[in-house]
């Protein structure tokens, strides 16, 4: 489904401020596989997500989604296949627009937008149908502004928006990071249910080692722009958060990362 071949991403190439964010990442993720990605700050996780989403173009290498070479395609032309949930709950929704308008916008993802009403009775029914299982009462609040929702509600809404058009690839970019532990658990349950329903390939970046181990089929550890560990099945299940931290630290990361990962394990 998702294929990265020798992908490099370098910022400020040739200058003293040169940063090699990705260094020859090669990766195959089949359809339906749920992959979690961990690594310290600067390991290349976000760069990987940006390359897959189309926000950055690789300096070298090739990206394919569903057999289509998308290396040079901008974000909006990949949206047919790719849905994304950002780390900041405010980034994935439009606070000045109603819940209905936010969902209507997502309903058009990957289709040519036309001069017909963005929302009608049938679409509102579909929206309510998708919102009801959340149990947040959002199905009765379609006309409320998205800005009135809490961070957890907004991230739940973003998850629903991501699943509206049945994407082939779901990108979750630290989407639980800004939520309190209780809300994290609820949105994580929602994530697992959504991925199960969609049956799509999923790439989830997280700083939470327990989530990285417990959720999904496969775990990637990134460090210094490379995938340094790729585990799945029994190997993944036998990992402990402490051992995962040791792996990342042993890869030569800085002291501040120990603190960050230490917090995640705690």
């Amino acid at each position: 489904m998702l294929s990265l071949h020798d992908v490099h991403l370098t910022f400020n190439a040739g200058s003293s401020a040169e940063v090699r964010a990705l260094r020859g990442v090669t990766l195959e993720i089949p359809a339906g596989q749920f992959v979690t990605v961990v690594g310290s700050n600067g390991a290349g996780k976000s760069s990987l997500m940006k390359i897959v989403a189309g926000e950055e173009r690789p300096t070298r290498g090739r990206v394919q989604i569903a057999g289509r070479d998308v290396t040079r395609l901008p974000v909006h032309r990949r949206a047919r296949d790719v849905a994304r949930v950002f780390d900041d709950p405010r980034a994935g929704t439009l606070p000045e627009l109603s819940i209905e308008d936010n969902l209507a916008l997502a309903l058009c993802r990957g289709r040519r937008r036309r001069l017909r009403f963005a929302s009608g009775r049938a679409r509102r029914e579909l929206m309510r149908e998708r919102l009801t299982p959340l149990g947040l009462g959002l199905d009765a609040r379609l006309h409320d502004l998205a800005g009135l929702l809490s961070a957890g509600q907004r991230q739940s809404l973003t998850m629903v928006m991501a699943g509206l058009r049945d994407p082939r690839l779901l990108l979750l970019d630290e989407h639980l990071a800004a939520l309190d532990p209780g809300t994290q658990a609820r949105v994580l349950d929602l994530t697992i249910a959504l991925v199960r329903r969609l049956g799509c390939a999923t790439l989830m970046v997280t700083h939470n080692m327990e989530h990285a181990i417990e959720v999904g089929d496969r775990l990637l550890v990134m460090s210094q722009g490379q995938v340094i560990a790729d585990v799945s099945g029994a190997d993944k299940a036998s990992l402990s958060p402490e051992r995962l931290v040791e792996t990342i630290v042993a890869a030569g990361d800085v002291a501040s990362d120990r603190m960050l990962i230490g917090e995640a394990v705690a």
Partner: protein
Amino acid sequence: MSQVIVDTLLTGLPLVPAVVGIWMIFRLREDFDLTIDASFATGGAVTAALLAGGASVPTAMAAAVAAAGAMGLMTAGLHLLLRVPVLLAGVAMSIGFYSVDLRIMGVPSVSLVEGSTLFSGFAGLSPGAADAATIAVLGGIVAAVLVALGLFLRTEVGLALRASGVNERMTRSQGADVRALLCLSLVLANALAGLSGCLVVQADGFADVNMGAGTLIAGIGAVLLGELLLRPAGSKVLRTMLALLAGALAYRLVLVGALRLGLPATDLKAVTALTLIVAIAAERYGRPLLRLARRRLEGAAAPLGARAEAGVGR
């Protein structure tokens, strides 16, 4: 008093399309496009030149709107291809098109007194009837523009246009081409300003090369006043359109009222600036002050015991 209202409608209604265009950039994109000043003047210049040359009214109006829309496209091109910020691109356009407008008209000012306009058929009517007919025609055009734009903003394309100004990254991730949407918003905004210039020239009976100066600033004042009056929220498209209409008319009411009170026409620019400042201040401080006053009034009206319980006067 009734003449103040008539004058407000006669001078305010032609400005409504420009105010809507300014709102599209100022509120939907949170940007300033000074091309509006130029496209308003060019819309007027094209209309005057064509009507004075014997062209039909529909032809002149279509050409004015198309020319102004093309100016929006040029600003979008400067922004997207040369990476010039919209504000600076607009400044360049407004300076450059002063010369273009002079070329179009040939002279700094063109009179349409003898030419055919939208309103020349009302020349034989009494002054009151002519004003009423002019207001009816302008009102019809403005209503058509507001309804059409209100409906457009509720379409799939219109929704993406509204979204792209709020959160470009999210809109892009939802599959919308934000570069195309930027072009569309600048074309529409300037086409609407051109339509206003076209209507003003026909209502006033003349075009002047300086007529666009201050249009953007006046429009922003009208937008702020309208928002203060009707408080439109993001998804309330119809209410937003009504707020823009109310804002444009309220803004003109201030100027017409100032003239009626004996203010010399030379001071109108100062009144325009003052109204803008008041509108900005009222938007920021008006609602909290109103809430405070309402609370005080409610407190004063409550019985003494209830006031003591609520802690009033402590």
